């Protein structure tokens, strides 16, 4: 087990290095990029950039400076608002997005898994068709359609939840619900498929032949195998929640990292964009590592191999 964690960790390092290097070279050589000398930039910003990135030094030295800055967590000043450091901005915005993400994930799991299990047990009945059709609708209803619709229905017309902003717990409900329902739909389908497949396996028949009740079969025998696809999905789900946050935070005017990122992209705030990209990349690699560990913990066979 420990070997697994260690090996994944070691694998992550070259990945991060590749990303850092790629972004470095992309920004240096992109036409119309931030370091294009033809661009008209206010003098103070230019000075600050040059000192931070060492634009007067040879390329290789710039690269080393860049890497060493990264290791210290220094992502440079924001291009658009040079009084702020990128890392400070990320530190303020990320907790908001994290709350949104965690709540959405909880909603998705608490909704999706039970629904999927019931659908698998009561296959081809209304308890299967109805939730599965709804979940299909859920998958096809993107968050940027669902969000405004929910605002329109629940907020504007029924006045149940506040629509915009992020001031108190009240504000958390609609956004998390929007994102959570979308992923809940995916999880419901995966759970159903995973459970159905597991329930066909030979060892379930053995359990039945021993006289186990349906409940016992479901919880003790089928659950671990059946939920494995959901665990595997967690990896892409985390990535999706991050992407989803861009959209949700834009719709609901939430001051999270997603909104900052999108605004920075619009405003051509290069350092902010790059810094956020690196941050996200590290985050996802870390989360994928967690998922791998979780998978290995569930599967006795995987525990013993590297």
């Amino acid at each position: 087990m420990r070997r697994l964690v260690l090996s994944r960790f070691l694998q992550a390092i070259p990945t991060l290095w590749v990303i850092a290097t790629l972004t470095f070279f992309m920004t240096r050589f992109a036409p119309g990029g931030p370091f294009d000398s033809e661009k008209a930039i206010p003098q103070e910003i230019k000075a600050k950039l040059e000192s931070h990135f060492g634009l007067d030094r040879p390329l290789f030295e710039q690269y080393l400076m860049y890497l060493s800055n990264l290791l210290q967590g220094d992502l440079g000043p924001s291009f658009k608002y040079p009084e702020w450091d990128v890392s400070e901005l990320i530190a303020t915005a990320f907790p908001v997005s994290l709350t949104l993400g965690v709540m959405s994930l909880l909603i998705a799991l608490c909704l999706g898994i039970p629904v999927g299990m019931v659908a698998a047990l009561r296959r081809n009945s209304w308890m299967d068709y109805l939730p599965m059709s709804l979940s299909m609708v859920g998958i096809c209803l993107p968050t940027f359609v669902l969000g405004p619709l929910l605002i329109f229905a629940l907020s504007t017309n029924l006045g149940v939840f506040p629509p915009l902003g992020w001031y108190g717990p009240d504000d958390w409900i609609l956004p998390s619900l929007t994102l959570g329902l979308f992923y809940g739909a995916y999880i419901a389908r995966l759970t159903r498929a995973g459970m159905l497949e597991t329930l066909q396996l030979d060892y379930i028949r053995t359990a039945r032949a021993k006289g186990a009740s349906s409940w016992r079969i479901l919880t003790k025998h089928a659950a671990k195998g059946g939920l494995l696809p959901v665990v595997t999905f967690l990896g892409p789900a985390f990535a999706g929640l991050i992407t989803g946050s861009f959209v949700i935070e834009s719709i609901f005017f939430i001051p999270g990292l997603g909104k900052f990122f999108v605004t920075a992209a619009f405003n051509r705030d290069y350092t902010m964009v790059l810094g956020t990209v690196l941050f996200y990349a590290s985050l996802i690699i870390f989360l994928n590592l967690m998922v791998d560990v979780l998978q290995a913990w569930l599967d006795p066979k995987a525990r013993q191999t590297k």
Partner: protein
Amino acid sequence: MSMQTSNSLGKDAWLRLRANRMAMLSLFVLIGIFIISLLGPLLSSFSYQEQNLDKVFQPPDKEHFLGTDNLGRDLFARTTYGGRISLAVGLLATLVSLLIGVSYGMIAGYAGGRIDSFMMRGVDVLYSLPFIIFVILLMVLFGRNFLLLFIAIGAVEWLTMARITRAQTLNLKNTEFIEAARALGYSHLRIIFRHILPNLLGPIIVYATLTVPAVMLLEAVLSFLGLGVQAPMSSWGSLIKEGAEKMDAAPWLLLFPGLFFCVTLFALNFLGDGLRDALDPKSSQDG
């Protein structure tokens, strides 16, 4: 053993698909949407660009089927035009990801050994990142180029296609009929194109059909964020964005493009599921 009439596996699959009502309904709906998107802008009496500041925010009526937007532009014309863009991006990007992904996966799977490990290591590294972030980065750095847009989007999806193709190729490579082909002295090229590729078609078709909606969704998200196509060109994504902003004043601006978009996604997903069931080899084998 009974001899059925000589049906190839392809024909068997088509018959099974025909029997699946939801899948056939989806197919017809898709064909319908395709036709409307293609012909709509031509048939409509208004151009998608034509502004008419007298008729701003008109609800649907006889003249404007779906109403008008904040600049008096006809929503029907804009929506069908948007359909062209969205569908074009969807199909073209899927094609790009198909070509790259299938070739890559087939080579990796067939070669096996070190070459395979090396190629797939690269894929694994790239897979672990949400590509959309890189697409956004590219958009920021290189500006909003329509061609770049759908190449970038296609490049996002090729990874999964490569993984699936490689897994299938590995499976096939170890089957006895491929070993028999080697024992008979067939060249690698012959084996790849005559024996492996035709047997990959099933999963590839299914996955391609499911990739189109994923790609369309990606494009829509980008447009929604303002990073996709630029006005006056519109895709369903950008139309939905405008509609969401003006929702209180004119809900139809959100509703109709949203409806077109969601129905298309819905139909593509159902068709994909239907194809998956139809091409499932387990149901066609006896014994």
